[in-house]
């Protein structure tokens, strides 16, 4: 009997705290009363008390903490109090499993009602519903459960809302690109260049070739440099002065804006080939300026993860350091290194600005990295959108198609990275 009395005494307190949402409170009130004698799951002390040692054992303990326990923590304190008396109750009142669902329904209904009567749009409806949910569920939990659980439910709600908000642009972007780009896809789109194409037709073959060649060459340039830098930093440099300097320089490199990398490559190649130089290789150099720090950092992290014990085990077998690195450390870290490198490649494959400057733009296929302009997907998308030609709809459609193709390439690189990572991962055999 006594625990219920505590609740009835507490409920008005909580109601005073939260006068602004009557639906939640009346619902919780009902739930509290309902759980009392009938449902053992939701009412820990209520059922254990009378069942085991009778009300006398719980009553003083349960009543005692009530005055100093405002808010919803009374239930827990009561449990603690009885624990002191030697009768341990590990149960605590809990909202039914369908409580979040019910609250969500009520919140949606409330949001819809408001939205319909006041003529709001979809966004206002979503915001209002989420807000109602975020207030109602924790309030209900505060009344029935305890403070910790209420905070838990509030934070959970906030985290999921943040997740949903983050998802909005992603979904919207994917939808836009797919819906606008997919119609452009055809066999011709992937097998023709834009040479002598006006209006309809043509394709992005030259841009795909350019992107693959330039990015591939950038990878060829950056992976050895990046990996070896990381090996130096982790295996040889550790804490020495040159390593600290290199660390700083890598940080600086991470912050280089991509257009600056493009201008750097342009200036560099202008020295050798005269002003106005354009070549794919220059693009590769610009991209590797952006890629090297990423590769260094990801490889460094992976090498640091290799336990020192393995290195020592190898040394103890009389294996020199360089062999230890090549045959023990690198294979152990290989999965992470491959994944990191693939992500770095995917990251630079979509760069536009540096390629605009140094690789230029062309309508024809160019397979030679070392001479002449070379088209790439981002640059193609840029130009077809900015200068779609007449009539414009074909150029715009090709731009979206190129964008979708680029996303697909980057995504498959990411997937490939994860796949290779799994392939190389050390097997435990369990």
């Amino acid at each position, binding site marked *: 009997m006594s625990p219920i009395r505590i609740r009835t005494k507490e409920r008005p307190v909580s109601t005073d705290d939260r006068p602004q949402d009557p639906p939640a409170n009346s619902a919780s009130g009902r739930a509290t009363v309902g759980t009392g004698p009938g449902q053992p799951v939701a009412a820990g002390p209520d059922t254990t008390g009378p069942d085991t040692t009778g009300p006398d054992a719980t009553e003083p303990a349960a009543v005692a903490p009530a005055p100093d326990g405002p808010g919803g923590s009374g239930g827990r304190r009561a449990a603690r109090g009885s624990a002191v008396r030697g009768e341990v109750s590990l149960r605590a009142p809990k909202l039914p499993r369908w409580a979040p669902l019910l609250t969500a329904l009520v919140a949606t209904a409330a949001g819809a009602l408001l939205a319909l009567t006041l003529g709001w749009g979809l966004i206002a409806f979503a915001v209002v519903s989420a807000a109602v949910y975020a207030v109602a569920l924790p309030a209900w939990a505060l009344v029935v459960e305890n403070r910790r659980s209420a905070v838990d439910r509030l934070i959970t709600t906030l985290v999921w809302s943040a997740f949903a908000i983050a998802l909005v642009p992603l979904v919207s972007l994917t939808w836009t690109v797919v819906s606008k780009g997919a119609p452009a896809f055809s066999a011709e789109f992937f097998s023709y260049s834009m040479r002598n194409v006006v209006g309809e037709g043509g394709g992005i073959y030259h841009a795909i070739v350019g992107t693959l060649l330039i990015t591939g060459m950038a990878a060829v340039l950056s992976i050895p440099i990046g990996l070896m830098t990381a090996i130096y930093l982790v295996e040889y440099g550790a804490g020495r002065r040159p390593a600290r300097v290199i660390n700083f320089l890598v940080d600086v490199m991470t912050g280089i804006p991509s257009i600056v990398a493009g201008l750097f490559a342009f200036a560099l190649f202008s020295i050798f080939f005269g002003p106005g130089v354009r070549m794919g290789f220059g693009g590769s150099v610009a991209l590797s300026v952006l890629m090297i720090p990423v590769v260094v950092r990801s490889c460094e992290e992976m090498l640091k993860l290799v336990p020192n*014990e393995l290195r020592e085990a190898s040394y*103890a077998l009389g294996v*020199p350091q360089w062999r230890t690195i090549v045959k023990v450390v690198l294979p152990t870290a290989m999965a992470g290194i491959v994944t990191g490198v693939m992500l770095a490649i995917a990251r630079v494959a979509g760069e536009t600005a540096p390629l605009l400057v140094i690789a230029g733009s062309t309508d024809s296929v160019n397979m030679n990295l070392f001479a002449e302009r070379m088209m790439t997907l981002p640059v193609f998308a840029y130009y077809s959108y900015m200068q779609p030609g007449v009539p414009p709809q074909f150029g715009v459609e090709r731009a979206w198609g190129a964008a979708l193709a680029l996303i697909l390439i980057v995504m498959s690189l990411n997937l490939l990275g994860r796949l290779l990572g799994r392939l190389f991962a050390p*097997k*435990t055999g369990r």
Partner: protein
Amino acid sequence: MATSIDVSDLDIYYGDFKAVEGVTMSIPAKSVTAFIGPSGCGKSTFLRSLNRMHEVVPGARVDGRVVMGGQDLYGSDVDPVEVRRQVGMVFQRPNPFPTMSIYENVLAGNRLNSRRMKKSEADDIVERALRGANLWKEVSDRLDKPGAGLSGGQQQRLCIARAIAVEPQVLLMDEPCSALDPISTSAIEDLIHELRTEYTIVIVTHNMQQAARFSEDTAFFNLAGAGKPGRLVEMNSTKKIFSVPDDPSTEAYISGRFG
């Protein structure tokens, strides 16, 4: 194929911190020598200085002489890699190479040094090392499975097999059983007992019974005082150390009165 080790006046440093001071001892060949002492007194540090693993730690150095087979290990023309080939090591936590199978783990010392060998020769080495480590019966049917998939005790014996596959003269073991259950521990103790006939074995242990059971000699290390470097208090035959030690602090430690 086993040699004795003579250490004279060895100081061991981590940067400016002197971890061990003035150790002089003679470790006899083809026998088991146990190191005991409270944690942090420098047993591991000293052990690692016996195969030049100590200097793997940045800033670490030693001062003094460690003579093995007539050569000073810290002589200026000595290659630490060669030293480690002669002085194998087993660590506290089993550390098989995760990327390698059981077979490759045993052969690691040979393979990593890219010694070329015929398949039959390699098979031979693997079987001999695994038999030597009392592991052959348990794993002979799954040599191509990853070494990391074995139990802790099996992994430790795999590490011992890996160490003896390169046929060192000395085997250093740093608390090889402290991460293992009693059954694995006794398997490894039996193994150490057998290996004694072929190798000079030095073992760090916190287990007094273990030290008393299978070592010929025991060295007791202790800190000279809080913040002071560790030092060798006394080294004697195990029988003497565990019955009538020279130093009162040894007796206090062994009888559990401190440490």
